């Protein structure tokens, strides 16, 4: 079976500086896959490459077996990849409703049922639907960013550090929702610094170091792995 998403030998350079080297990643239908690594390891670049914001200099990105790495970013959305960018990047001066509508921009026409579905996932957004995005709290903004990406009806949702700068309780709520999104049939690729929580949520995980995949395994195995525990879970060498 072809995986939903496959990165094959992807190399990305920012000028002369390589950001990704020979990265191979696979995400199968219905999975939650976590992408772990330190700052600057290339996690965000990986997501930006998948969604077409960055072009790989070598290798290919395949969605259901079709190459998508040369497709412009605004068309990738239509192919079924929703991207929740790092730092949320909601439109601060547009209302919550307008933010959600932009998420469905490629489809034309948003039905009330679609909006209701998002509001059901995030009841707080319904309350704040006429409020401008910039006045929301960090957690609400993250929910709005996820809701905006879901409005494009993606098969694959890319989440870049959904826990960034949020209180532990809010992070937990967001992670619960990610699980629910997967249960409703959307495959998820999540980048996280918060390795322990991400691995508890995920089915499988990849560890990036200096732009290369150094480990790839089931989430449970990674959670138990000595090197991961030392490097990313903050436990001293036992």
């Amino acid at each position, binding site marked *: 079976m072809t995986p939903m998403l496959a990165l094959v030998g992807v190399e990305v350079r*920012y000028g002369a500086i390589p*950001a990704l080297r020979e990265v191979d990643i696979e995400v199968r239908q219905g999975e939650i896959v976590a992408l772990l690594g330190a700052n*600057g390891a290339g996690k*965000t*670049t990986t997501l930006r490459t998948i*969604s077409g*914001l960055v072009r790989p200099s070598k290798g290919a990105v395949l969605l259901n077996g079709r190459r998508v790495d040369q497709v*412009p*970013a*605004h*068309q990738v*959305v*239509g192919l079924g990849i929703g*991207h929740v*960018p790092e*730092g949320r*990047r*909601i*439109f*601060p*001066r*547009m209302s919550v409703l*307008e933010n959600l*509508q*932009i*998420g469905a*921009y*490629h489809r*034309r026409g948003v039905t009330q049922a679609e909006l209701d579905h998002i509001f059901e996932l995030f009841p707080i957004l319904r309350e704040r639907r006429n409020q*401008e995005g*910039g*006045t929301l709290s960090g957690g609400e903004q993250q929910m709005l960013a996820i809701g*905006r*990406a879901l409005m*494009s009806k993606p098969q694959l949702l890319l989440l870049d550090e959904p826990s960034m700068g949020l209180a532990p309780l809010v992070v937990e709520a967001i992670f619960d929702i990610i699980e629910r999104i997967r249960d409703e049939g959307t495959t998820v690729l999540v980048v996280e610094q918060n390795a322990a929580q991400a691995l508890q949520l995920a089915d499988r995980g990849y560890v990036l170091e200096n732009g290369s995949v150094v480990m790839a395994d089931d989430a449970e195995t990674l959670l138990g792995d000595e090197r991961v525990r030392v490097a990313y879970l903050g436990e001293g060498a036992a």
Partner: protein
Amino acid sequence: MTAPGTPAARPPAGPEAGAQPAVTWDERPTAWARLVSSVDARRAFAYLVGFLVLAVMTGPSGSSSAPTSGFTGSLFNPRVFWFIGLAVVFWGATTARHRYQARIRAWNDSVLALPRRLMPDKRVRYGFYLALLVFAIIYPMHVSGFWQQVAVQQIGVYVLLTVGLNVVVGYAGLLDLGYVAFYAIGAYSAAFWTGAMPVHLPFHLNPFWTIPLAILAAMMAGVLLGVPTLRLRGDYLAIVTLGFGEIVSIVAQNLTSITGGSGGVLGIPHFSVNLLGVHYTWGLGNLPYYYLLLAFVVLILVLFHSLEESRVGRAWTAVREDEVAAEASGVNVLKYKVMAFAIGASTSGFAGVLTASQVGYIEPQDFTYYLSILILVLVIFGGMGSLPGAVVGAAVLQWFPEFLRLHPLFGFQQQDLYIYLGALLIVMMIFRPEGILPSKRRKREIGLAEHGVGTADAMTTTTAEIQ
């Protein structure tokens, strides 16, 4: 908050400056320090200096034989008292504003909300616009020839230009400093197709037929310039458009065999209709041109209003707020930026045809960089991204210099225009940064920026780009 152009408005160096720890000093500030540290006093000083500078710079000018005569002449002119009076008024207004901030803000908000409250019903609002239109049709019949000319050449054409630039700067957030280039392209296209240029075709067209051709030429120039440069972000576009504006005016100046060079192009015909037995020529009179312009302006306003409310308008807002997020949400950022740029360029080119045909004479000096800045000021003054703002901003700011020109005391001179505009913009940034009739969204942007959320600059530049 200090006013412009004041070297004196520094935080006071109190008597403790340079004192070592463990050395005791008198805690009580001297009277001078008290005065200097008083915000009110500093503000008064700033306004006074600012307005005196304005008075001297706009007053009678000196000559090379007596360079200081202008200075003394303007400083001892009775108009100085007017400027001092204005300084006092503004000082009072600023002080009051800071003292009664909450109340003024509430008042400001309620005034801003007034149109919406008074005109909740669409029919009432359209009735209001209709009444305005009727006023715009009837009133100019009853003013003098001078004011009719102002209504066409200063207000009508500039309303059109401002509304066009408003699409580029206000809707899409692109800083275009070479806007006048498209105006020139439109005007020279009109001259070319009507056979007025040194290089001409075997046939001549009526100026009406040149309108689509000029719009096409300006739009194509806009697209050709836009496609490569709109990939760049923020400041680069400003620089490239600035250069483009200069190139166009220099080409018009130096390509004598084609454009007539600095001598300009003479004898561009007036609009005329010769259809179904109706013969009419828009001649030298201003009123017929006024109505022609009014019709086009209304048409364009309706068009742009529906654009603003459409999917396209929403895409422009998204692009202005965050290009990367817009792209990641499926908005074709480049397409919408080029579209806004081309629409602005076409409007500018259209205005060029109207001017060329009305005046009958164009020269490269009509299309200098200053004009681009002036139109940008009109957009900012009216309220970026707001159609009523663009219209009112252009009308008021173009009317005001003419009013000053006729005023016995101020005796406005054309070369002082930009000094007054600068002063006006500074005052406006203090009292009403969102423009006189801001769009609802723009008002929010300024409000949020005051609370430290986001930026209030027109040209939202997204910097968090790599990783």
